[in-house]
């Protein structure tokens, strides 16, 4: 057990989640607190919203980004708007031929992304540049069979499961803010990862909760998603 304020890094949702009864545990890397004790597997399979903002993620951008990532052992291709699962369970989102975002696995990455960031040198003159995605964007996951129906209330993209297959990305507008929506199922459960402006995180969280109302309005947490992953 910990509290968000014991860490220098904090999720913008800490008070909103605490109000809903969230408990807090340290992230695997130990640099922030992440919500815990919310939701159930059944809810997560039906429809649930999880805040993964405290988990590591990192972007790279620049015209040589794809080869630069390959050189670093990231599994990816140059196709825009496709996601690639990494051997450690993380994700690489290819937004364009010039831009990727790397998401930590649910189990945490033990500083791997931080090392990628720290090892990068401007002087190397490699045309790829790190982006602080952990700070610029909140990270939500919407899981469950009802996700497409919920999204239809806040986004103009057709997210029906047979039309928006696993590992597809839409960079679009959700509830009037720009967002990157990636379908990357967890175990056999449909899962949509949303990266959206961290400054709008509270507003966006309210929109998700409101849209989820008619489907039971459930929150979940990282440990529930990890249960989905294994079962």
């Amino acid at each position, binding site marked *: 057990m910990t509290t968000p304020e014991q860490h220098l890094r904090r999720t913008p949702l800490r008070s909103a989640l605490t109000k809903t009864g969230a408990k807090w545990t340290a992230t695997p890397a130990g640099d922030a607190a992440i919500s815990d004790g919310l939701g159930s597997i059944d809810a997560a399979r039906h429809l649930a919203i999880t805040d993964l*903002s405290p988990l590591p993620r990192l972007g790279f951008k620049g015209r040589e980004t794809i080869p630069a990532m390959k050189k670093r052992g990231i599994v990816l291709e140059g196709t825009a708007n496709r996601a690639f699962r990494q051997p450690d369970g993380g994700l690489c989102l290819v937004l364009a031929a010039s831009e990727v975002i790397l998401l930590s696995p649910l189990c945490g990455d033990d500083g791997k992304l931080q090392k990628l960031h720290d090892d990068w040198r401007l002087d190397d003159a490699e045309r790829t540049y790190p982006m602080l995605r952990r*700070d610029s964007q909140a990270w939500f996951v919407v899981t469950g069979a009802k996700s497409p129906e919920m999204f239809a209330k*806040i986004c103009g993209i057709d997210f029906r499961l047979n039309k928006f297959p696993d590992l597809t990305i839409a960079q679009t507008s959700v*509830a*009037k803010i720009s967002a990157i929506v990636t379908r990357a199922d967890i175990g056999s459960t449909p899962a949509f990862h949303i990266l959206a402006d961290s400054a*709008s995180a509270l507003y966006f969280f309210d929109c998700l909760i409101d849209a989820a109302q008619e489907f039971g309005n459930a929150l979940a947490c990282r440990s529930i998603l990890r249960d989905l992953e294994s079962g």
Partner: protein
Amino acid sequence: MSTSSPARIDKPGFGLLIDRTKPLSFTFDGRLFNGYQGDTIASALYGAGQVLLSRSFKYHRPRGALTMNGLDANTLVQVADEPNVRADLHAVTPGLAVVSINRLGSLERDAFSIMDYFGRFLPVGFYYKTFFRPAGVWKYFERPIRIMAGLGTLDPRAEHKYYDKAYLFTDVLVVGGGQAGLEAAIAAAEGGAETLLIEENSELGGSLLYGRVGDSRDAADTLRRDLITRARGIKNLTILTSTVVSGLFTDGWAAAISGNRLLKIRTRQTIVAAGSFDQPIVFRNNDRPGILFATAAQRLMRLYGVRPGNRAVIATSNTFGYETALDLLDAGSEVAAIVDLGTTTGPAVEAARARGIRIVTNATPVDAKGYLRVESVGIASITAQGKTSSVTDWITCDCVLISVGCSPALNLASHAGAKVVFDPAIQMHRAVNAPEGVSLAGSAAGLWSPDRVSTHAKETGAIAARLAAGSPAGSQPDATDPGAASITHPYPIFKSAKGKEFIDFDEDLSVKDIINSVKDGYDDIQLVKRYSTAGLGPSQGRHANLNTIRVVSAVTGKPPEVIGTTTFRPPLVPEKFAHMAGRAFEPTRLTSMHRRHEELGAQFMTAGLWLRPAYYGAKDNAARAIEDEVRAVRNNAGLIDVSTLGGLDIRGPDAAAFIDRMYTWAYEKQPVGRARYTLMTDIAGVVIDDGVACRLAPNHYYVTATTSAVDQVYRAMTWFNVQWKTDVDVANVTAAYSAVNLAGPKARDIVQSLSSDIDFSKDAFPYMGVRTGTLAGIPVRVLRVGFVGEAGYEIHCPASFGEALWDILMTAGKPHGLKPFGVEAQRILRLEKGHIIVGQDTDGLTNPIEAGMEWALAKKKPFYVGKRSIDMQAAKGITRKLVGFTVTDSAAPTPKDCHLIIRNGAIVGRITSVVKSPTLGKVVGLAYLPLDMTETGHRFEIRVDGGTMVSAEVVPTPFYDPDNARQEI
């Protein structure tokens, strides 16, 4: 509770939608009425003997149900705080309080019905002709006229209700759940397309719910049940009932209303099978309650088990009228006569004859008696088109049922771009040249015979499925139907010498009104509509357009196909503002430190989407709070959250060259570790943004931009770089970084009390220096800039550390008297220093020379955005300049932003910023003045609120610390 009523039919085959075991009661104008679960307001009232529902818009004539399908304005009622509810669609529920509208006193004795006698004084164009002279007279008439003419009552205290919107995606959309819609939807779904069928009513079936197929009610019912069973059994066919498609647009985009939700539908193919609208006979008093369409009578009987009357007269020109007569007999009503406008033939005619009904051919109703309900109808022989003999017979009756043809529901096809043309062969309109992705089926497509409807709809559905899948359409279905020619009478209009033969029930327009419109010179159908208001009412001309066209045709001698038609526009049905507004999405951006501001009692102001602390403390003590914040910065230290400031990372070998092209000053030679002011102009040389450029490395600049402009700046930078192809990467990192400005004489003491790898001493980190490192364990970019004019540090950190940074600095600053300050104090502090704010001290035309920013223009650079235009302006010379001023009379009222500078009675300039400076004890500000007024010491007059003139004098800036000694300590 007893609900037995003589109007209810207790026989099998009647009352499909009602549950006779569930009686309920409700009120109408305060009187208690009984109905059944499944009734609409209108059916329950009719079933309880209350045929009168409303008063008409203009003449306040009594009105009753006309279509029983939500298509007319007669059934508009008020339900609690909701005005203009369609009583024939709205379900009745226990205790529902329904009130009639558009009346003074009771519905039965509406005092406004006196208007009916003034009809000849209210000719078409009355308002245009009457109230424009003498000038101003309208304002005396408007209020009483509005009170008399209004529909429904808005309740400003109405409870807020939740409305929202949702997208729906489908391959094929079928509008209308009648025979054609069901057949088409089944075929499309069986063809593999994901299909969405939308039906406005609560039950599928359309006319199969109440009508007959080949004279047989059983055949219709069997066909309906069979189609529904098949449709419900198909997995990829989704059915939405009680949902109405209100608009159809380009690229397969449709709007639909389902309860409190507006559906935004995206489809590949749309099949409009929306049926058709009944058309009335135009004869004197044709609007009396109890005169309704035959289909409305069938709906009353079959859906709600309500007899439309005990003794009916049927006026018809097709077999549907005869079929209705058979229904009435089956329901136990008497049919006094069938008045046939022609000589209809067919099995239903034979059946009616066989059952002994009196049939009068080549005749029509021409007048009706009875006021609150029809009591008898006068019939006459038709002698020529629109001409009759005098009344040959008055037939006593309590209802008159009309079936003389239809007008296809082409609205949606027309919204999407189809052309609507008149087809003389069937005396109805057709949609032609439907845009790609839109097709029609059923009576909307001009097909009426059930077997033809079936074949055509199936093929249409199959084609839509193929097209949705990207396959070739194949051959088009045969869209002809010989049976369609005998549906619609060509001219069921019988003008009366005594008038009151209504062509538009919503607007109380008679034949004379249309004729007079043409005579007044408005002879084009579009002009007739606007001048006469025909078709402008709530039913949008569904029952008026065709007869209006016929009358214009008769008056002008041009055939209907030449007259054309008016344009259908969305929405097809009334939409509520609540549906449009729906669940509003209004993003708000909060900085990472927002919680702390709340805890400190901040009053917030908006800056774009952001919320920023204006000041800290109670609203009633604002001026004092702001002054205290200013003093804290000047005397000790202040901390302001500047996270909303825009941030851009420019990285790559061409970074300096790129910035040189984007901004007006020179950056190539800027040393690493230094910040430099940036000024951005657009291509026309207008000032659009400013900030600082920090050179963090030879190939890396961190550039700040103003809160409101950063998105535009980022767009402009990327737009230019798509074309320039310089070797840089431009990233908008505004949300990635939080920032504070720690300013004041104690600022250095505070940062030096924290652990850091940055040397904050004056020599190591001079004014306009930039450092990166860590501060109390937080990664930071620190800028020494002087917006507020004191020694200070702008500390930027990754946003997720923002709150911790705020906490650490507030704790460290406590012993030094550190106070948080807001935007209001910052505006004063910067104005004391004479710094401009782009957008406040500049406008949409300001060039840098006028703004006194010539020093920030690199004259030797070959190019920057805006350079060419600024050079032109410099050569041409400017006419105004931004200067500092102070008010000379300390007792004078303080001017405000945008107060005007007056010389010899003329406006010559304006104030852009002004404040009573707590530090200097006087009023200082910035203003644009003509060049001949800008020298130091020049005196001028400002006109303040109330017209008082205040004297002011031009003074140099900065007003405070002119040598800039304090910020560079």
